[in-house]
């Protein structure tokens, strides 16, 4: 009996040490998070309905894009409506580079990222001289023009989606979206991308630039008075957001093996959904983005469709369709969050944590700070 107790005590100590190790190293937390996400994705792929894995991959990819957008919206208070258009640029750009010019996957990705950053720089320089709200107008125009350009030229398949057969890494390993095993690897790539995005954004937020962003988000005028060049940091935030959008587009192409279409994927609606992820998840919170994506993408995809089938089971409701309800759900969530819960859904979790902790430590609950 005593030996058992001793073993248990040693085990508990070891677990406590591991938890402390992870707690001290945020990078480890993100790696852990990414690994967990990969195994969830893998179990969906190996489960009964592998088609759901597409939605799960979308959640992860939109989380990455939202991380970049968070820097723009949460930290510098700017709205971009061209996020989806930048994702479209990168999927079509990758497609053209890889299929028409037979460029190596990694080189193509690099070119696309640099191009997106350059485009972000151009749009930002032209629109950020004016008041902050003008960026939204300029990006609305960019999204509109990019959509029309895709529809007008054959190189972009007139805006329709174009498939790629497979993706070749290092000239020998090739992954095809049709093969079950390969899709697990592709999910792994998306998960690695997620970890990478989290770590990069974490480092940006904790760097001196991140503190400048934080200052701007608290008070524009105070930041200006402290000698922070607000325009330069806003430009930087917009460039990072476009690069992250392009990165998300690359991962979309990698996983879906299709460019997606302008009308169904890279439209204003998706830009608004990405905005909703940032707002609902909780501005300025990094884990909030994953939570936001899970709410905004996950709930309509995983719950509305089964509910529709459930309703159709009743006689008079045979032809009922819940089309459009996902947008209304997202729109209402944006408005309700802005009006009543400005710190977003992540606040619920941090409050819960505080309540639990204070229960165990017998301290009065103080309510959580925004994560």
């Amino acid at each position, binding site marked *: 009996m005593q030996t058992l107790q001793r073993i248990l005590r040693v085990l508990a100590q070891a677990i406590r040490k591991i938890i402390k190790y992870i707690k001290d190293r945020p990078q480890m937390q993100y790696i852990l998070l990414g690994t967990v996400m990969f195994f969830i994705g893998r179990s969906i792929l190996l489960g009964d309905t592998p088609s759901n894995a597409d939605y799960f991959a979308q959640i992860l990819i939109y989380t990455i894009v939202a991380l970049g957008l968070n820097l723009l919206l949460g930290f510098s208070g700017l709205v971009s409506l061209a996020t989806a258009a930048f994702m479209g640029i990168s999927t079509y750009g990758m497609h053209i580079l890889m299929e028409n010019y037979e460029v190596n996957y990694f080189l193509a990705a690099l070119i696309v990222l640099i191009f997106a950053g350059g485009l972000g720089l151009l749009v930002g320089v032209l629109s950020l001289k004016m008041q902050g*709200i003008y960026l939204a*107008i300029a990006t609305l125009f960019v999204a509109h023009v990019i959509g029309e350009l895709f529809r007008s030229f054959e190189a972009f398949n007139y805006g329709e989606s174009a498939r790629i057969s497979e993706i070749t890494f290092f000239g020998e390993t090739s992954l095809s979206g049709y093969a079950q095993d390969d899709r697990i690897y592709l999910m792994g790539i998306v998960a690695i991308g997620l970890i990478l995005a989290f770590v990069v954004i974490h480092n940006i937020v904790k760097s001196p630039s991140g503190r400048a962003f934080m200052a701007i988000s608290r008070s524009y005028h105070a930041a200006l008075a402290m000698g922070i060049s607000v325009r330069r940091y806003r430009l930087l935030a917009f460039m990072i957001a476009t690069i992250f959008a392009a990165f998300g587009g690359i991962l979309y192409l990698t996983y879906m093996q299709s460019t997606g279409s302008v009308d169904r994927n890279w439209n204003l609606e998706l830009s*608004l959904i990405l905005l909703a992820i940032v707002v609902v998840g909780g501005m300025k919170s990094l884990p909030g983005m994953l939570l936001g994506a899970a709410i905004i993408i996950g709930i309509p995809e995983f719950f509305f469709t089964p509910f529709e089938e459930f309703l159709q089971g009743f006689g008079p409701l045979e032809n009922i369709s819940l*089309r*459009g309800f996902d*947008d209304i759900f*997202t729109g209402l969530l944006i*408005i309700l969050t802005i009006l009543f819960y400005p710190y977003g859904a992540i606040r619920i979790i941090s409050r819960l944590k505080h309540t639990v902790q204070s229960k165990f430590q017998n301290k009065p609950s103080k309510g959580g700070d925004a994560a």
Partner: protein
Amino acid sequence: MDISTIIQILFNSLRTGSIVALAGLGIVLIYRTSKATNFAQGSIGTINAFVAGYIAHATGLSIWTSTLIALGTAFLTGVIIDKLFIRPAGRTASPVNKQILTLGIILILTGIMNMNIGILGDLFTPRYPEQFISSSERVMILGRNIQWNTIFIVALSIFLLSAIFLFIQKTRWGLAIRVTASNETAARLMGVPTKTVTMIAWAVAAMLGTIAGIALAPRAPAGLNPGLLIGTQVSAFFAAVFGGFQSFFGPVFAAYIIGFLLSAGRYGMSSYFGQPSIIADLIIYLVILIILYFKPFGIFGKAPERKV
């Protein structure tokens, strides 16, 4: 290029400019009175244009009567949006938050337009509504057949715009709008019912957007569809920025300039260069952005004072 082509371009640009001016004035009205950049202007107009198209299609009423009914629903839409979403945000909400609110409204309206429950599925079926005046009614102007409908739309817009300007400049309520636009807190302290002013601004903006939608739909490439006014809205925002958000007249003037540049540019791009007309849009808007880089508050605007 002969005279008849010039006449054609001129009337096209007047038509485009009128539609953009209607949508743009709505955006400026809302911006001035509630300090919100209303990105939902296009969606509000579209959803009510659908109502007009459906009533004309289902009941056989003329497009004139259906337009009047749609203007009623537009008024209601504006009031409801102001009451439910904008006013609770209050004066303390930052401009960005109000902007995000209007983006949420776009999603809700898009969702409603995609719904397929009961009457809604039929209501929001893409269709081509009739023109105000049948396209067979034409008039010869300098060797070019111009539709009376085009002339009517231009005349109607100019009449509406002048009426609104007169209203803003000459009446007590117009004074209330101008006072609210210049300083809301002071206006409220002086006894101006700013809430009513804001509500009316939203309602009028919704009605202007609806007229723009109904005027545009018969000749739009895809007819009535949820994305009907997106292009118009982009132009309207550019007109508002280009003319200066700080004036009511500037955006309307800029709308006609942009309408002319777009019509001429698109015609030239497709007939002389054989390129898709969107390239013309791209070049024109880029030039406007570059002009705005040097004159950030528009050609008629002045820099607002900044207070800490």
